[in-house]
């Protein structure tokens, strides 16, 4: 009996559910279509204005393409953000007067205020986006705020701010190096060095100061800058870096010294050799191959006895270059016929022949 009453209830419930699902599907389909249509309309109106500005003699002339509809849509946040994205994309694609016109349009529409507002957002990716927008649009008037974000707690925000400072001011944009507390990643350092490759340094005194920083990544970066700009003036400071307990500082110093050696360079490298880890030792031995002389041969021969086979291989390689006998040295070595030296020497001799 009970089942008899339940059956229609279940049927009605299912029908109501089916109806609700249908209504929901219809609502979302219509909403999506509307939003797609809106996007097409947005794309068209933004496209007309940007193309107009790119080909105009001045931004005023380009703004003639702005319709009432365009200006009305500017009140919508979504539209504004879309416009900023498209302007940024176009600014990256065009150079010369077209790029300048795009910048002027961005300023005329006060879009810099929207980008600036993003700098104070709680979400890190929005802060980073704001910096990127201001950086690409060359909005140097926000330098103070961007400077502070160069020390933001989020790495990607810091990176964007530091890149923007360098894009704005070149060498003097590096002033954030005096203030940052966080470490700079190796990848970010490469990015900054790439941005600086066309920039002329203002003063090598800055590099000397950064090499004294309490932030070890700043020291690494300063040594890399000294290497990039072939800055002989800071040689003594770089030599001091060989005593650092940080292996990255030591390795970057070795790279500088390998490329800009002086008479006493190999002595400094050998003096600090035993304080380093295997990576550092290998880097020293490889550097000695490039800058060493017969004077380093006794040290290298001694290191052929090292426990580590990688070091033995590197030492044998350097000896085959520095020793007056070349590969012939291997025959004079007392343990040349025993393992592992026999295999190492064989490998190096064969590689040289090949």
């Amino acid at each position: 009996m009970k089942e008899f009453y339940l059956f229609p209830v279940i049927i009605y419930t299912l029908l109501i559910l089916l109806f609700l699902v249908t209504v929901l599907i219809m609502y979302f389909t219509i909403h999506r279509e509307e939003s797609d249509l809106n996007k097409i309309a947005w794309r068209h109106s933004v496209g007309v204005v940007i193309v107009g500005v790119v080909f105009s003699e001045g931004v005023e002339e380009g703004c003639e393409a702005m319709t009432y509809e365009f200006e009305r849509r500017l009140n919508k946040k979504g539209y504004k953000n879309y416009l900023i994205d498209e302007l940024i994309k176009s600014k990256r694609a065009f150079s010369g007067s077209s790029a300048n016109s795009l910048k002027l349009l961005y300023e005329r529409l006060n879009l810099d205020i929207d980008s600036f507002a993003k700098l104070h957002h709680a979400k890190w990716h929005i802060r980073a986006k704001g910096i990127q927008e201001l950086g690409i649009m060359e909005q140097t008037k926000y330098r103070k705020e961007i400077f502070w974000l160069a020390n933001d707690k989020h790495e990607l925000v810091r990176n964007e701010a530091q890149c923007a400072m360098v894009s704005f001011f070149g060498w003097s944009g590096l002033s954030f190096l005096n203030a940052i507390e966080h470490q700079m990643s190796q990848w970010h350092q490469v990015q900054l060095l790439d941005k600086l490759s066309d920039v002329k340094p203002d003063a090598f005194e800055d590099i000397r100061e950064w090499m004294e920083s309490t932030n070890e990544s700043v020291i690494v970066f300063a040594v890399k800058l000294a290497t990039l700009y072939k800055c002989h003036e800071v040689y003594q400071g770089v030599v001091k870096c060989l005593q650092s307990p940080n292996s990255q500082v030591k390795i970057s110093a070795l790279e500088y010294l390998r490329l800009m050696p002086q008479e006493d360079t190999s002595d400094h490298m050998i003096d600090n050799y035993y304080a380093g880890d295997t990576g550092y030792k290998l880097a020293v031995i490889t550097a000695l191959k490039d800058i060493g002389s017969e004077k380093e041969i006794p040290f290298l021969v001694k290191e052929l006895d090292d426990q580590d086979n990688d070091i033995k291989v590197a030492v044998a390689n350097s000896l085959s270059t520095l020793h007056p006998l070349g590969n012939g040295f291997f025959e004079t070595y007392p343990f040349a016929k025993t393992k592992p030296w026999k295999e190492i020497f064989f490998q190096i001799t064969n590689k040289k022949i090949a």
Partner: protein
Amino acid sequence: MKVLVAEDDMIMLKTIEVRLKKDGYNVITAQDGKEALRKFEQQAPDLIITDIMMPFMSGLEIVGAVKKQGGKDTPIIVLSTMGQENVVLEAFKLGADDFITKPFSPKELSMRVQRYAQKMENT
């Protein structure tokens, strides 16, 4: 002269189209690689300008396909971005004739196209 422009970014495509039309060329546009290849087969353009990164079929694939499909004499200008040097070299290996790196000025593109137009007039 008929120029086929393949670029997935609508504003960029429109900008190039407007510029080249102003210069008096007949411009055919395509928003992805497949469309570009179809239009190449149907309309036999005299010059192709293609972006490298595009949906469905990359600029490199377009260069390879055009050069294989009887377009040996059709010059191709590749649009690249900074840091795509290896891709540009690959495009040259496949038969591309020239490249322009973004950011570029529309005037620069116009001058390059003009050079090809003059070459064609002379031959």
